């Protein structure tokens, strides 16, 4: 057991994957000597060489497109998109090629490509550096979409994603890169929670609070605050955004009868919509009140001096939780 920041945990997970399988490659802008702008790939090129940790031209479509080709040749590329807002030049390669190649080949082609995307706001950055595009990928069949929220999961999930034979969009919570938690490098990956399962991070009985990525910490803090007010909030870290672990989600909501979904992305058309709609379809008669959503406004991500208003914080989450009781 060792305590690592989320960024270092990812680094350790990538290192392990590179060691375990010579077919694993890391590629992206500035992933080599610089170690990535968040240092997630720090030191990897030095140890695994320029052929396995590939500094690429500045072209995201190129990164994903060539990763597809490398996968066709039997490699398992792990692509870094430098910031969430820069995944869009690669959107076509992701949704029309990467996601569809298996079906196009009737299962004869496997696309074990992992796309790491540092995502979300809260770091005082300029435009395009604080986006949360997960809903776009969760609406795209053929992709798996996951989000890690802490070092422990980050270490296991990045390795699971790389081992997964499906393309995985791997969201990393930018503003939690420096949060620390325990990581057990000796643990058997097979013993880890499967990649497609959600985790109940805080038990509760009154209301279910669903979240993922950077919002997990916020939601846990909200739940702790709510507890002080006598309200028992169950917090679930979804981890897998596509597919959703409806078993865990529904199980909780059926017990509590109330639910709030929180994410940074705009509420309108966000993942919360899918989650709310699905819960409502599947648990309608157990619901005491409508599933509420709390998240970004229906506006572009604002300049950083306003981001504290845009991002759902402890108070806004609590407000939503309260509203599920305000019948």
């Amino acid at each position, binding site marked *: 057991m060792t305590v690592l920041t989320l960024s270092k945990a990812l680094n350790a997970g990538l290192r392990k994957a590179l060691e375990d399988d010579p077919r694993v490659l890391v590629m992206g802008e500035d992933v080599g000597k610089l170690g990535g702008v968040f240092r997630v790939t720090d030191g990897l090129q030095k140890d695994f060489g320029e052929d*396995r940790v590939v500094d690429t*031209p500045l072209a995201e*479509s190129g990164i994903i497109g*060539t990763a597809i*080709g490398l996968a*066709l*040749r039997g490699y398992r590329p792990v692509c870094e998109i430098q910031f969430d807002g820069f995944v869009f030049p690669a959107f076509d390669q992701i949704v029309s090629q990467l996601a569809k190649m298996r079906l*196009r080949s009737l299962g*004869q082609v496997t696309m074990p490509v992992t796309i790491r995307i540092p995502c979300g706001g809260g770091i005082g950055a300029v435009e395009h550096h604080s986006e949360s595009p997960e809903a776009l990928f969760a609406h795209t069949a053929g992709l798996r979409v996951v989000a890690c929220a802490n070092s422990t999961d980050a270490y296991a999930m990045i390795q699971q994603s790389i081992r997964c034979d499906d393309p995985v969009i791997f969201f990393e919570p930018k503003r939690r890169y420096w949060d620390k938690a325990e990581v057990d490098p000796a643990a058997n990956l097979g013993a880890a929670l499967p990649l*497609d399962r959600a985790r109940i991070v805080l038990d509760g009985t009154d209301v279910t609070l669903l979240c993922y990525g950077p919002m997990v910490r916020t939601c846990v803090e909200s739940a702790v605050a709510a507890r002080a007010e006598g309200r028992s909030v169950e917090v679930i870290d979804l981890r897998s955004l596509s597919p959703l672990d409806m078993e865990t989600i529904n199980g909780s909501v059926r017990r509590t009868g109330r639910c709030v979904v929180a994410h940074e992305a705009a509420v309108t058309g966000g993942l919360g919509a899918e989650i709310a709609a699905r819960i409502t379809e599947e648990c309608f008669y157990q619901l005491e009140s409508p599933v509420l959503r709390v998240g970004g406004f229906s506006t572009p991500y604002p300049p950083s001096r306003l981001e504290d208003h845009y991002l759902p914080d402890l108070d806004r989450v609590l407000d939503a939780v309260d509203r599920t009781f305000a019948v």
Partner: protein
Amino acid sequence: MTVDADGAVTAPGTPAGLDRPPGPRTETIQLLTPEGERVEHPDYPLELTDDEIKDLYRDLVLVRRIDTEAIALQRQGELGIWASLLGQEAAQVGSGRALGPRDMAFPTYREHGVAWCRGLDPTRLLELFRGVSHGGWDPAAHKFHLYTIVIGSQTLHATGYAMGIQRDGAVGEDGEAAIVYFGDGATSQGDVNEAFIWASVFNAPIVFFCQNNQWAISEPLERQSRIPLYKRASGFGFPGLRVDGNDVLACLAVTRKAMQAAREGQGPTLIEAFTYRMGAHTTTDDPTRYRLASELQAWKLKDPIERVKAYLVRTGAADAAFLEGVDAEADDLGGRVRQACLEMPDPQPLAIFENVYAGPNALLDAEREQYAAYLDSFTGEEAR
């Protein structure tokens, strides 16, 4: 011999601009004239036996026959659409026959001739156009990737594959290379230019084979470039050249040399095969809306098959029996393609849910179950 390009599309000369001397005239590599005369090119010596040339002729005829049959099948409603290669047989057979068994080819949606050279059963091509699958063959089996419809995307796949060849240490004397096919229109896509960059920066073992058939649906070449396309490569720092795309010998020679250079580690080459799309863009297209019949007539005189036939007949390499034999074989093949098409079963409804993911997916599995139950709620057996 080097001939001036005399196609419908010519270089508009040097654009007005700063400090640029007028460039040299476009040079097109040719080894067999439209009249069927064998000519030499100092850089592309090609020694072929008569039998080898006859094999190429056979390829050309058979490939055209597949195409003709497919068009007919589409007209009869058996295929949803077909993208004809009419006129481009030499470019495809010439380049396709230049590939070694370990080279990997990445096609667009029109490379039926290359598919043929790679040994893919032509009836497999029909699945996509009939709407039975989105492709469905195993790219590894014949080293022939799936058809790619989104213009230009495959150039990056091929480049990545070539980078994989490098990482496998398979560059060198006994090396492998990739070849990627794309059209004149595709050269305008960002992806294709990014592929040029990646291939040159990493010196990847790849040949970019552009079939300039002078049209991107209704858009003439002038909408994509104001200079000959092969010159694009120079801006990225690798060689580009133009070959007579209706000359199977030249296409073979040029592709062979470029592939060998790639295999040996000399990096990418862009080949522009200057040809002409003699048919409609696809069976749903109506080219009379945007181009003149005279243009087509002019290109008929440069037919890729006729010139080989003329050569074979003039030199006495082929007699009537041979030609008839090939035609008979073509008819057989046409019949086989037709029959395979007519017999092609529709996929089962629940196939919709297959091959989306490698592993189980709870959500999709639930959807499959629901839909199966829904179908059963009708007549049980029949609908499924």
